[in-house]
């Protein structure tokens, strides 16, 4: 999506990314980025929390209006009321044997598909 932002912006359409994968967006480098430190899947605010979504979106839009240079970014205050260990549980490598087996199984499936 960062590539899309760069393409749109380079061709005359201002863009704002509202997202949670800060390192990826920073690495690709985009015009305007509002960072929400939430589990992937809810960039605009926690699922079921319309009030917070509205506040985040409004803050992000006002930030976009104020930006005057590329790679402008802001950290939007967010509140995550679900399990607080979500950073650790995403793509966890705590069980290497299970992951290795999963990888093997996927490669076997893909090899069969190709035949």
């Amino acid at each position: 999506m960062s590539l899309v932002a760069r393409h749109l912006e380079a061709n005359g359409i201002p863009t704002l990314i509202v997202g949670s994968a800060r390192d990826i967006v920073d690495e690709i480098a985009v015009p305007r980025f509002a960072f929400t430190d939430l589990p992937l899947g809810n960039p605009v605010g926690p699922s079921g929390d319309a009030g917070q979504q509205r506040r985040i979106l409004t803050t992000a839009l006002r930030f976009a209006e104020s930006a005057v240079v590329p790679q402008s970014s802001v950290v939007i205050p967010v509140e995550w009321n679900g399990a607080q260990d979500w950073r650790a549980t995403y793509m966890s490598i705590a069980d290497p044997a299970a992951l290795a087996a999963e990888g093997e199984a996927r490669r076997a499936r893909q090899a069969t598909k190709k035949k």
Partner: protein
Amino acid sequence: MPKANRTFVSYIDKSREYYAAQGYDAPYTWASHTDAPFEPLAKPLSECRVALVTTALLSADARLEPYTAPSQPAPESLATEHLFWHKEATNTDDLGAYLPLDHLTALASEGIIGSLAPRFAGIPTVYSQRRTNRWAETIREALAEDDVDLAVLTPL
């Protein structure tokens, strides 16, 4: 508290380690830039026509290609199961959490933005950056047709 890791998740590091643990030796090569283009907003936010762009698809069996769909009425739901969001921690049952069409309609009626564009756009997440860049032009054409002043991209 002193710590050895960043507070914010590094998805580049996480995904590299995760796929390495699955036996994929060649890590994904991310696009990388040290500068970015910039196009100033042509008018105040309160006069801007705003469009949303998502990585969700209209349905689970939709073709992998960019698409547009009417902003209003907002779809009941979109297909997100194929994307790499945190399925143990949250859900995508609430469109407002990732494609806030109704919130933008409300912000338009309050005069915070000018209007919501008649269509939103979607672009599948794929491995190939060349394909993504080609699809980005399809999205640009649709947004330009709708005279969009600001595109808000909300990747899952």
